[in-house]
């Protein structure tokens, strides 16, 4: 019974994605219409300067936001797991978790109104653009990194760090030689999560982005409201291919690592 639902659920998740990808190879001008096999939409995609520009902006933005989120979220997770019961811990914890559950429309509006108020008071940030978008995505990503890092630190306890301190290592050495290597996988996972959140975001970007900063999801969203193009199908194939390739590389890396150890 549960197996039947499992395969039905997987079918439901995959059917629109596979159909989307399949019709990328159709010669027809309308999306989801079969007009014989053709590569033309991949050629059109490769020649679409606006789309490529938006995609490269999205990749750079996601990498920057994920890196910022990794630093801030790592610090938040470490504070929550290792600083005991300091004053204001409850507020700190609630604020750290808030972006996980706030409706995106509310976070987006709140961040935009903050940026406008700040600009009024201090003259910074000047207008909306890549910088405000970066901060908005980093604040969302940091919450996810904090959860992952806090969970990792809580599950392994402070024993190793205490032992290193007892053996004479100072705080910086303990952090560099014990804590950092132990949380490195969580930081990497958090970075990936933050990258994906930024790369896939429409709502926060709609509020905090400016005229010069159109990300890939924003561009696709504005085009979709006027009707999707077959180029979008070709893009879906490219994304799916990149994801599968990434997954395979990760598997190969895991296997080679297991063989070494």
């Amino acid at each position, binding site marked *: 019974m549960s197996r*039947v639902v499992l395969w039905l659920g997987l079918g439901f*998740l995959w059917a629109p994605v596979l159909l989307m990808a399949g019709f990328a190879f159709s010669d027809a001008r309308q999306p989801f219409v079969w007009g014989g096999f053709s590569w033309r939409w991949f050629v059109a995609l490769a020649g679409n300067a606006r789309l490529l520009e938006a995609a490269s902006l999205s990749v750079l933005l996601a990498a920057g936001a994920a890196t910022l989120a990794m630093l801030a979220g790592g610090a938040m997770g470490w*504070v929550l797991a290792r600083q005991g019961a300091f004053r204001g811990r409850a507020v700190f914890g609630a*604020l750290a*978790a808030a972006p996980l*559950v706030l409706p995106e*429309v509310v976070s987006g509006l709140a961040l935009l109104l903050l940026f406008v108020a700040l600009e009024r008071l201090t003259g910074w940030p000047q207008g909306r653009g890549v910088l405000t978008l970066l901060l908005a995505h980093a604040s969302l990503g940091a919450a996810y990194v904090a959860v992952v890092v806090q969970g990792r630190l809580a599950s392994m306890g402070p024993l190793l760090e205490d032992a290193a301190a007892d053996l004479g290592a100072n705080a910086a050495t303990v952090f560099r030689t014990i804590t950092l290597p132990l949380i490195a996988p969580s930081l990497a996972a958090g970075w990936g999560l933050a990258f994906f959140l930024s*790369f896939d975001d429409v709502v926060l970007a709609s509020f905090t982005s400016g005229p010069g900063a159109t990300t890939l999801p924003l561009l696709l969203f504005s085009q979709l409201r006027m009707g999707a193009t077959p180029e979008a199908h070709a893009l879906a194939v490219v994304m799916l291919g990149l994801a599968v390739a990434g997954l395979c590389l990760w598997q190969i890396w895991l296997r080679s690592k297991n063989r070494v150890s």
Partner: protein
Amino acid sequence: MIRALASAWLGLLVMAPLLVVAAIAFAVPDQGLPPFRLPIIEGRWEGGNESWGVLTADDFYLAALLRSLVVASATAGLCLALAYPMALGILRLAPARRPLVLALVVLPLCIGFVLRMAAWVGLLRDSGLVNQALLAMGVISAPVPLLYSSTGLLMGMVHSYLPFALLPLYAALAARDMRLEEAAADLGAGPFTVFRSITLPGSAAAAGAAFLLVFIPAAGEFVIPALLGAPDALLAGGAIWQEFFTARDWPLAAAASMALLAVLLPPLALWQRLGRR
């Protein structure tokens, strides 16, 4: 030092925005940019409650809020109804095959949220594949309006949120103590009795948390209703969006955000409690 930096980050990017929204919810709409002014005259707060009056004046906003809660409940309920048996189904597979199936759950996310919605638009149109297939099979004689209806909306919502319900449920069910179920089976309980008296009560908290993890963000969802839902059935997220971008009434958008947050606080508190167990 690290705590101070992290606190400054949270203060600037999480607390300050919420405080600014709360303040602007009491501001007064005005011409110019930004299109509002704070009701401070000669250093005294003159209090602008207009936005709150507009929100409660007629049923327009209340109806949008109620529709959002209904859509969010239906989405979360459907996700749970699918995700729970799916998680059990994955756990019945051989351990070596589980990572592959979990990857199959996550991979559809990788083509991106907007393209997944584009796929649904293409499938559900009057001339789309679903209607063509139903017509060809003779189930229907004329295209059924699926796109821009609650059917289309729920399809897109469940498709988007299902992995987020499935992954935490899978983690919780994978960590459960199998010995209890084995003991019950040894004592003569049938599979259904084992499920009803051991598995289900043991995972009720995780199921509740998964429901809320979908319900809370779904209640404020804007993009999926805008692309797939009925245009006349405005939801809370769409109402905030419209007031901000179309009507340019920032104080009203801020007040509506605060109202949505206030409604979501009880489920949020419940989610935190379920998660701590």
